[in-house]
């Protein structure tokens, strides 16, 4: 049986003409797993741009490949295992839902290196990485407080996971630093990716008189609504200025490429170690799109805040901060610990919503 399999494989290889295999083998393989399509115009595309940056940077040393539209669950485990078996030296699994699958495959292939985005489980050959999106959202909050005529904004939110709740709180915290009476409405659409639903939510908010919207969902639909209704909005994941040339104030742009290049470099020079990385504006895994459609003083304020966050002078979650019900959370001058942020499941004061339980 084994012989037969071998013969089949050999003939298949002959048919396929694996002539290019030899030259490709000299290169280090770096692989990616995406939950969406590499052209989804949102989250997965941002990671794919990062992959392309790696490919460009190390064109002669590294070969990159990816698997897209991988469902979370048993399919993820198979997809990651396939990459591990196909000779990838470093595998980035880019969605939270791939966490357990990555852990399992990493245990099975100790010689392959793994990095999982936005999760909390790690191992000797499994690192984690995430982006401090909340730093950007603090700036958005400040801009919103300066821009809104009725002391409020609407937040189109996907799912009540800590990542999203943290973003909402950071936005509100930024807004309150300018305008203590600022009210943030939150609307849950229970999807990352449904332009129709996101547009409906944006319209519903505009119909209720909101004049600034921000989103933690992936399509440009809310930005289009903002443009059409002559209000302001913030882009998410990528610069959405094309969808809202008059509406976009700025956008939080995922620039994973800088991180990926750093890690692949470490892989090539042998210094790669499994680490838990949580980079932010300073390290350049997220960048702010140009500040547009706002007066110069607001722009100046935003740039100053950005600089302060980068230098470490300002931490968005610095006390005194009360929880939504008025009970104290952080004392004056106290900074939130990373652990508390990563598991955040409560709102701070000023968020006008009841957190889904």
């Amino acid at each position, binding site marked *: 049986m084994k012989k037969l399999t071998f013969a089949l494989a050999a003939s*298949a290889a002959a048919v396929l003409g694996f002539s290019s295999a030899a030259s490709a083998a000299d290169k280090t393989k770096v692989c990616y797993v995406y939950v969406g399509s590499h052209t989804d115009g949102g989250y997965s595309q941002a990671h794919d741009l990062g992959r392309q940056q790696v490919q460009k940077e190390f064109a002669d040393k590294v070969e990159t490949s990816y698997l897209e539209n991988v469902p979370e*669950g048993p399919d993820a485990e198979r997809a990651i295992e396939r990459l591990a078996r196909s000779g990838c030296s470093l595998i980035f699994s880019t969605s939270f839902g791939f966490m357990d699958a990555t852990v399992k495959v990493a245990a099975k292939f100790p010689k392959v290196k793994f990095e999982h985005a936005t999760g909390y489980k790690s191992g000797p050959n499994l690192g984690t990485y995430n982006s401090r999106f909340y730093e950007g959202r603090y700036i958005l909050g400040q801009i919103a407080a300066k821009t809104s005529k009725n002391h409020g904004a609407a937040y189109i939110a996907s799912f009540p996971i800590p990542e999203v709740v943290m973003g909402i709180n950071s936005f509100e915290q930024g807004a309150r630093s300018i305008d203590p009476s600022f009210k943030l409405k939150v609307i849950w659409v229970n999807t990352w990716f449904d332009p129709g639903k996101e547009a409906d939510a944006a319209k519903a908010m505009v119909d209720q008189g909101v004049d600034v919207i921000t989103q933690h969902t992936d399509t440009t639909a809310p930005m289009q609504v903002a443009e059409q209704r002559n209000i302001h909005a913030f882009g998410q994941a990528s610069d959405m200025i094309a969808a809202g040339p008059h509406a976009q104030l700025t956008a939080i742009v995922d620039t994973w490429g800088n991180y990926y290049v750093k890690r692949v470099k470490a892989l090539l020079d042998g210094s790669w170690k499994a680490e838990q990385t949580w980079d932010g504006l300073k390290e350049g895994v997220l960048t702010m799109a140009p500040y547009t459609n706002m007066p110069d003083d607001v722009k100046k304020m935003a740039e100053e805040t950005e600089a302060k966050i980068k230098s470490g002078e300002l931490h968005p979650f610095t006390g005194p901060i009360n929880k939504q019900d008025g009970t104290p959370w952080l004392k004056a001058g106290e900074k939130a610990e990373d652990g508390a942020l990563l598991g955040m499941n409560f709102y701070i004061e000023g968020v006008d919503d009841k957190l889904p339980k």
Partner: protein
Amino acid sequence: MHIELEKRAAMSPAFSILSPLLALALTLVFGAIMFAMLGKDPVAAMSAIFVEPLLETWSLHELAIKAAPLILMGVGLAVCYRSNNWNIGAEGQFTIGAITGSYLPIVFYDWHSPLVLPLMLLLGALGGALFAAIPAMLKAHFNTNEILTSLMLVYIAQLFLDWLIRGAWRDPKGFNFPVSRDFAPEAVLPAIWEESGRAHWAFIFAIVAAGLTWFMMRYTLKGFEITVLGQSERAGRFAGFSSKKMIWFGFLFSGALAGLAGICEVSGSINHLQPAISPGYGFTAIIVAFLGRLNPLGIVASGLVLGLTYLGGEAAQLSIGVSDKVTRVFQGLLLFFVLSCDTLIYYKIRITWTRMRGGVA
């Protein structure tokens, strides 16, 4: 050109065997053309999709994992469809089965007993059956179209699971992320042959379910009843069969198997509950059921073939760099050819090149 069909007196045994092969051949030809148009080597593409996944042991295990839920659900649906009841909500019953089956390992997580696993499977099947009972009851008593109610219930089941995982069943040690606690070892469906890969008992259940169902359809009175009522409600009534009872039977049977598939998937492959547990298995199973010509043994084959195209599509993404959409188009092609070639089994096809006569078309 004009195509006419003429019904055969009996279904053609030759074409029963030939039609799937013909369909496969046509798919290969059209697929090859499509890949060539995309600038890919068609032979390499076909080999990546249909041959390479079968050459490695681990990949065969993965095939068994992928095919198990499709076969389990496909078999249940086939019985339901044979009885002329149209349950297209297997996806929802799969979800609810996964939830009810997970009740023990999540809520009574510190109860360690060899009884846990059998009870889980039972609860899963029960949950799926009860959820399928809703469209059955609505059809039997209110005459409500079951295609639509069972479909609507899919969305409801998924949102319910979502609510549960983000709320009551969230892992207390999971940093508030939407996953349940991990199942204890005795709540995990064991692997069939652990040394060589991760395929688990769900595949055995699927094969057994297919075998038993085949036996039931062929040799028992129940099977006869299903066939008769499915072909003609009136004839069935003359034979003393109740179509109302058959609605219940068809839905409970397919619901139970879908529920079993759900808990098997969660217990054997995922080991905890999470918001996304199925990449549309319940809908793919409908296609599997039809590809297998509603015959339980045929469904084993069609489940494996469809599973193969998923695995092969993934392999092709890596080895020849085709997009994942190409795979879906390719699957669509395969289905269309199989469905159209099946016509040959029941009909003779006559193609006339002259213009048709006026009047009756």
